[in-house]
């Protein structure tokens, strides 16, 4: 009985042994015993990429989507391994087949715009769409922008607004800024200056420079929000600090209009300001 069991299990054991041997040969090291995915992440954070690789590779080979995704990142960036975009894509593809949103997003990001082949473009669009459906705000935003500017897909302002709004509602600053522009211009919806100002303000509070300049201008002109030149100066100064050229011009105009003590008070606020974290 024992013999028959060992005979039946031999091929599996042999395959496992071969796999382990291949692993040792490919990394130059034996896999680490008693380690977890999280141990791999700790090593990665400490930039000990060789150790992270040793921990994640066996997991990835046993179809752990998170380990497959992280190996993709390592090959994409050349961390602990020679940079190899094809290997990165191959690992991300394995994880994407298991519906891992970040793998779908990265896979699509490397393909979109980068290939002439229409079939590959369609695949990239499908990956980005799936990541967006799974709730990833960066993917929702990217997809929205693609529909808005007809990049790799037919222009569709309704879909563009739908995806950008979903990302904005999740707190994604660039999407909030874009919702500000869509509301301002009445794209796939009514012109709504109040809504535009509120979206710009949300993104500005997160530190998004262009939104800070936009809300500053709106405060200065009372456009969709109650006129307040002190608030205007506060926001355009923050934008100017991030090298937005027109913000610097707006700042100069406002500084001349406001009393010196008010300007000083605002500068104190500017230097102690920290962006909200989402």
């Amino acid at each position, binding site marked *: 009985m024992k013999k028959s069991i060992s005979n039946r299990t031999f091929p599996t054991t042999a395959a496992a042994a071969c796999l382990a041997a291949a692993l040792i040969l490919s990394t130059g090291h034996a896999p680490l015993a008693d380690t977890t*995915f999280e141990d791999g992440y700790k090593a990665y954070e*400490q*930039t000990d990429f*060789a150790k992270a690789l040793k921990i994640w590779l066996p997991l990835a080979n046993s179809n752990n989507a998170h380990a497959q995704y992280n190996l993709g*990142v390592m090959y994409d960036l050349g*961390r602990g391994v020679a940079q190899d975009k094809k290997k990165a894509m191959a690992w991300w593809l394995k994880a994407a087949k298991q519906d891992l949103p970040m793998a779908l*997003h990265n896979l699509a990001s490397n393909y979109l715009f980068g290939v002439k082949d229409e079939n590959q473009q369609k695949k990239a669009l499908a990956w980005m769409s799936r990541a967006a459906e799974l709730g990833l705000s*960066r993917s929702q935003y990217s997809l929205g922008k693609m529909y808005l*500017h007809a990049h790799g897909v037919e222009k569709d302002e309704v879909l563009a607004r739908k995806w950008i709004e979903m990302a904005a509602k999740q707190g994604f600053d660039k999407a909030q800024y874009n919702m500000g522009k869509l509301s301002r211009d009445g794209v796939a919806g009514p012109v709504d200056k109040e809504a535009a100002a509120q979206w710009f303000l949300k993104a500005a509070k997160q530190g998004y420079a262009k939104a800070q300049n936009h809300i500053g201008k709106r405060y200065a002109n009372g456009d969709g929000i109650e006129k307040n030149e002190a608030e205007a100066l506060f926001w355009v100064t923050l934008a100017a600090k991030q090298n937005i*050229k027109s913000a610097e011009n707006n700042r100069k105009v406002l500084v001349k209009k406001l009393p010196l003590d008010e300007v000083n008070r605002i500068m104190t606020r500017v230097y102690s300001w920290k962006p909200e974290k989402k």
Partner: protein
Amino acid sequence: MKRILRFIPSALAGFALIVIVSSAKANEQEAAAFISNLANQALQTLGDVSIPLEAREEKLRVLLQDGFAMKFIGRYVLGKYWKKMTAAQQEEYQKLFAEWTLRTYSSRLGGYKNQKFTVVKVIDNGKKDIFVKTRINQPGGGDPIDCDWRIRKVNGKYKIVDIGIAGISMLLTQKREFASLLNRNGINGLIEMLRVRNSKFTAMSS
């Protein structure tokens, strides 16, 4: 006396040669120090494990930006398309291009655990640019990472103007890729591509 007079021009030529050679030597030392300083910044910033790696890398990108002639590189790779952009597009493009360049190439300065960064050779052939060849030896005997930094003095400060990987210029590679993309997707397409590429996620924790 005649002999002495005959000797003077060749002596002056010799002196001029020594001045040129020593000036080239000084430039080479300065250039090596410039690149080594960037590598040290990488080492110090990435070595501070009290903050997450993604935040450390972002901090490093901000620090390194000043070491690159980013506006020049950004304009050069666009070629004739630069003048076709609006001022807002130029501003947006330069910001995204700088981030993307630093995301792609900053790891060539090393700074990760047990990596050893060395300046292998500096070549100053007396023209506008100096080439600094560097190598990173990987822990565990992985393939070394080689890089050629083409640097130039801009307003008295050294700046990186091109990066060579395996003898291939980043400037020329990008110019070709961007030209093809601009033909297919236009200026907004290029901006979107950079935005999407910069939006890639890094390693996940669980």
